[in-house]
C-alpha cells in the first residue's frame, strides 16, 4: 500500500481545535493517514506526559508510559468508540499504565485534608533551572509541595482544559460536581504556600 497524499488539499482537521481537532485527526488516522496520527501525537503528548508525571513517575518511566499509550492507541484504533472522547481515553489509559508501572494502585479516594501528606517529589529541583522569573519559581515550588492528588488534578485541569471537565472527572473517578470544589481547595492551598514562600516581601 502506498501512502498517497495530496499536499494541495488541506487536511480535514484544518482550522479545528480541541476535541473537534482530535476527532478529525483520529478519523483520518483510522483511514491510514499518518499525518493525522502525527498531529495527534504532537498535540496530545504533553497531556499524556502530565498524567504520568502527575502519578509520580520519574521522567524515564513517564516516557515509557507515553510511548506505550500511543502504541496501544494505534494498535487498536477502534477502541476509542467516540472520537471526541479521545482525550479521556488517553488520560484513563495513561493513568492505568502509570499505576501498573508504579506497582501500586492509587485508590480513587476524593481529596481530603488527611491526604496532605508529603509525597517524595520526583520533580526537578527549581534550582536546576535558570532564567526563570522569581514568580514562576515560587509557583513551581508551591506546586511541588502540594499533595500528589492536587498536583494530578491541577495538571489535568490545565492540560485537558476547563472545557473537558468530564474527561478529568471520569479519569480521576471523581464525581463531576466535586472537581470544581476540589480544584478550588488545591488552589487555596497553593496560594497559602505561595504566601509563605513569598513572605511579606
Amino acid at each position, binding site marked *: 500500500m502506498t501512502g498517497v497524499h495530496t499536499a494541495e488539499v488541506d487536511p480535514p482537521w484544518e482550522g479545528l481545535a480541541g476535541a473537534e481537532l482530535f476527532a478529525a485527526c483520529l478519523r483520518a488516522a483510522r483511514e491510514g493517514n499518518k499525518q493525522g496520527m502525527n498531529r495527534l501525537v504532537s498535540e496530545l503528548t504533553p497531556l499524556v506526559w502530565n498524567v504520568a508525571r502527575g502519578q509520580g513517575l520519574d521522567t524515564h518511566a513517564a516516557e*515509557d508510559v507515553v*510511548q506505550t499509550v*500511543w502504541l496501544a492507541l494505534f494498535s487498536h484504533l477502534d477502541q476509542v468508540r467516540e472520537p471526541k472522547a479521545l482525550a479521556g481515553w488517553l488520560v484513563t489509559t495513561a493513568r492505568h499504565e502509570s499505576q501498573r508501572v508504579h506497582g501500586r494502585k492509587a485508590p480513587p479516594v476524593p481529596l481530603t485534608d488527611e491526604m496532605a501528606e508529603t509525597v517524595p517529589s520526583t520533580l526537578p529541583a527549581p534550582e536546576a533551572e535558570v532564567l526563570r522569573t522569581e514568580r514562576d519559581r515560587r509557583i513551581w515550588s508551591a506546586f511541588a509541595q502540594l499533595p500528589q492528588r492536587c498536583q494530578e488534578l491541577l495538571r489535568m485541569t490545565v492540560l485537558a482544559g476547563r472545557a473537558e471537565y468530564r474527561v478529568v472527572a471520569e479519569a480521576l473517578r471523581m464525581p463531576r460536581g466535586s472537581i470544581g470544589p476540589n480544584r478550588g481547595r488545591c488552589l487555596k492551598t497553593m496560594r497559602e504556600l505561595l504566601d509563605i514562600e513569598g513572605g511579606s516581601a
Partner: protein
Amino acid sequence: MREHGAPEGGAQSDDESLLADLGRVIATFDPPPPGLVERVQFALELENLDVEVARWERAGLAGVRSAVDQGTITFTVSDLTVMINLTKTGRCHRIDGWLVPAGRYEVEVRVAEHGSSATTADEGGRFVLDDVPRGTTQIVVSMPDALGRRTVVTPAVVL
C-alpha cells in the same frame, strides 16, 4: 493563549489567573523530554501496528537508562522477555539478544534514519546483529502464534 482576561471578580478570577500561570509554569519546568514526540512518531511508523508493546524492565533503581551505553536491557510483555546486550564498536554497536521463551523468531532492529536490520533467532532464542547504527532504536520480534502471527515491539529508545 489568553493573558489577563477581564476581571470576573472574587476568588474565581484569582483561580483563573493562577491556573493560567500554573499552565505556563508546568510547561516550562516539566515539559516532555526533547525528542519524545519524534520518538513516538518513529515508533508509530511501523508497517503493522497490530503489536504488543514490551515494557522496559528496570533492574533495581529507576533511572538505569542513563547507563544505556553498555550492559543489558530487558523488555517484557506478557510471557515474552527480550534481553539485549550492547557492545560499542566504533560508531555502531553490536546487539546480542536473547528471547525467552526461545524460538526461531524473526527479529528486526529499526534505527531512525538508518533503515533496519533483521535476523532470525536460533533455537536457543539467541540473535546477534553487528554494526547497528546508534540512534533512536526499536526492536520488533515476530513469532507465530495460534492466530497466525504475533508482533512484539519495544518502545523507541536512544541507544
